[in-house]
């Protein structure tokens, strides 16, 4: 360290210091492709050269999550080293002389990718990740023209189709280990690992039971980081196409807050593009008879959940109360912390409230037979597919059962299909919709009306902030001077704040990712939780970083989407859920009041202990 500084002063090495190197950071001198540079010590070769205007191709490496160094795509030649080195894990050292693109390097990269491709199914044309696949792009980037190795795998691995939300195809897996790392390090679920050895290794669950039969939360974070199509959402676009083309069906759609800041990316626009109006226009062109908004029921959730909190506070109910919008989180607590289930709000998620309200209140109002109505939801989330198929989620059927003399065979779910942002993008492309050229359009009334409080459900901290905006005014009967609660915004893992409600101090906490949720639950189970109200979102960043969002999704992109979410909030005329006129009308005409009998029947639910398996 000393030496480097001296050398630099003496000018023995005439080189450039890597851009962005803070003053006073220890540096070392390296040579890249024959040119000398100073770079900060302790960085990997990959990181060090990226600020020098080079980008080494990588495949298995996933910044912030893992570096298993399994693919060998990032190799570089270092003078004096016997073999080529993997730049994603090799740290720079003083005097290192690196060649990034020598003949040997390029040949080795190609060989390594050809080895991966030898056993890989060559069905890009019919693959869900076609044109959005890291393996495919690396093969094209390296100029692979033929595969010199023969397939060694004799029989294909069976697919894992046990999950409602995800499908795994181990034949497309390159064993990078990203999914295993995300599931363990970010989510703390550990549903999957690499099983077996040698040519038989594959990512799988305990005893090959399949994702649907273990404690997987369906969060889809594994699918989001998978470089290939080895883990994908269970595709329901064919079913939705069919419903749209059925003249007997009234097909309505609801869109989650995070779709409007994600969909644009999948349609070729910039990270975090805010596309609310274009999204509505596009959905209309797909043929939905009404384009409604999950944000309407996000406002409804605030009404129900806010009053549930007030009720628990005044009647000595179980505290802290924890939010229940995120189905991955719900399944997680059902598996891992069932003792704490009574802390979870009984409110259904906005997706499910929407289905229940659409097939009762709206169907009745419009004279539609609920059996002919199809509710499709567009979600940033794979776990929503599972949530929609939970047996409890048939509120509307039970509502109509006696009224219409329905039989068991008439059973229908409140939400028929939950599509991810990625699936919607595929449908829009199939339908030849020129997304960027669309004029903005407005949601339909009444289930399309929402406030700024509902938009921010899409970001971690948003449900908390929305709840505080309403709770403050309901409890204090005073006007909230400023609606923005900055303390619960941002990407920090666990955020806390204290709010003064007319002298009652409310301590709140907000966590995203299930690993962070564990921290708050451990406190509760030890009886040490200082909080009254907790928001938990399964995915990093909240729904905007959900497992159904466009790929890639990383921290930078999450920040861009969050900015758009808060921009949308600030430009909404009404920013508090209880001021939504369509919600006020819904209570007046149908629900009567928050936590009413009808509300309980349609908007609230219960949970189930599942055990760890």
């Amino acid at each position, binding site marked *: 360290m000393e030496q480097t500084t001296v050398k630099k002063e003496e000018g023995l090495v005439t080189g450039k210091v890597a851009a962005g190197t803070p003053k006073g950071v220890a540096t070392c001198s390296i040579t890249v492709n024959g040119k000398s540079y100073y770079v900060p010590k302790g960085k990997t070769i990959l990181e060090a050269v990226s600020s020098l205007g080079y980008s080494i191709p990588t495949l298995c490496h996933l910044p912030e999550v893992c570096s298993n160094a399994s693919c060998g795509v990032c190799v570089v030649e270092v003078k004096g080293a016997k073999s080529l080195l993997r730049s994603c894990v090799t740290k720079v050292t003083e005097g290192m002389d690196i060649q990034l693109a020598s003949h040997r390097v390029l040949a080795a990269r190609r060989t390594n990718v050809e080895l991966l491709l030898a056993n890989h199914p060559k069905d890009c044309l019919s693959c869900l990740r076609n044109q959005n696949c890291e393996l495919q792009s690396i093969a094209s980037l390296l100029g692979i023209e033929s595969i010199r190795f023969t397939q060694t795998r004799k029989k294909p691995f069976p697919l894992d189709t046990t999950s409602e939300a995800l499908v795994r195809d181990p034949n497309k897996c390159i064993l990078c280990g990203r999914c295993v790392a995300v599931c363990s390090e970010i989510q703390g679920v*550990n549903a999957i690992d690499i*099983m077996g*050895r040698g040519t038989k290794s594959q990512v799988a669950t305990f*005893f090959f039971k399949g994702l649907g039969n273990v404690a997987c939360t369906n969060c889809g974070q594994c699918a989001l980081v998978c470089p290939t199509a080895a883990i994908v959402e269970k595709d329901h676009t064919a079913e939705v196409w069919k419903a749209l083309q059925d003249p007997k069906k009234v097909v309505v759609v609801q869109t989650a807050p995070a779709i409007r800041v994600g969909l644009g990316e999948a349609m070729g626009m910039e990270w975090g593009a805010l596309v609310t109006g274009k999204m509505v226009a596009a959905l209309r062109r797909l043929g939905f008879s009404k384009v409604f908004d999950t944000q309407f029921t996000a406002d409804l959730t605030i009404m129900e959940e806010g009053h549930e909190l007030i009720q628990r506070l005044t009647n000595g109910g179980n505290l802290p109360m924890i939010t229940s919008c995120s189905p991955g989180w719900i399944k997680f607590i059902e598996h891992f912390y069932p003792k704490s289930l009574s802390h979870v709000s009984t409110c259904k998620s906005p997706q499910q409230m929407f289905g229940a309200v659409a097939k009762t209140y709206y169907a009745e109002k419009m004279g539609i037979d609920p059996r002919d109505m199809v509710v499709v939801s567009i979600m940033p989330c794979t776990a929503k597919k599972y949530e929609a198929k939970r047996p409890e989620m048939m509120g509307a059927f039970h509502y109509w059962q006696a009224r219409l003399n329905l039989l068991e065979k008439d059973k229908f779910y409140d939400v028929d299909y939950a599509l991810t942002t990625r699936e919607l993008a595929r449908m829009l492309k199939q339908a030849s919709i020129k997304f960027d050229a669309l004029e903005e359009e407005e949601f339909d009334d009444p289930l399309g009306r929402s406030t700024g409080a509902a938009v921010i459900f899409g970001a971690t901290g948003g449900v908390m902030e929305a709840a505080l905006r309403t709770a403050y005014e309901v409890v204090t009967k005073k006007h909230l001077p400023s609606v923005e609660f900055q303390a619960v915004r941002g990407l920090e893992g666990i955020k806390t704040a204290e709010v003064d409600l007319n002298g009652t101090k409310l301590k709140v906490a907000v966590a995203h990712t299930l690993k962070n949720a564990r921290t708050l639950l451990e406190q509760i189970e030890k009886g040490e939780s200082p909080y009254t109200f907790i928001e938990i979102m399964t995915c990093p960043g909240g729904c905007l970083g959900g497992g159904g969002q466009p790929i890639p999704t990383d921290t930078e992109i999450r920040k861009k989407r969050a900015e758009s979410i808060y921009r949308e909030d600030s430009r909404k005329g009404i920013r508090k859920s209880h001021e939504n006129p369509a919600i006020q009308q819904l209570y007046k005409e149908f629900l009567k009041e928050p936590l009413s009998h009808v509300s309980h029947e349609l908007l609230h639910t219960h949970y189930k202990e599942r055990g760890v398996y």
Partner: protein
Amino acid sequence: MNTSVMPAASEQQILEIINRFQGKPGALLGILETVQESNPHKYLPEETLQLISKHTGTPLSRIYSLATFYSFFNLQPQGEHIILVCRGTACHTRGSRVLLEDLSCLLDGSAFLETGENTFTTKDKKFTIKTVACFGQCALAPVVSIDGVIYSRMTTARMKGIIEKLAKGGKKHE
């Protein structure tokens, strides 16, 4: 002998084993090995792995990953007699494939040859056949090991004799 599966280690026994390994490096592997040894059929049933996970705090998927990585862990009940057939190159050229086929036929397990699995246990849990890569005794190929005893230049006739004896409950070795 009773041919049905005998009870696996109890929760109490597993807890004792876990405590014995408390704080030792590589504890989990040791625990798995010891628990497997204590099983009358020398294997790790699902419920046993569940208990080990519960009491060590190691996720199920991690335990299963270890148990499938190391070939000395068995996830299926093992037969009373273990027959290892070498499928290394030397033994292959000296006819180990035929030995394996004859053996499978003899024990009613020819189907397993098609599955690509490398182990098979008879229904009565008397015999387990496993293939191995190389015993390092290539000069004596083909090599078969029966209950730990290595037989060199094995023939079908000789193998048949030994197996018939064992099946009748005879002494383990000639």
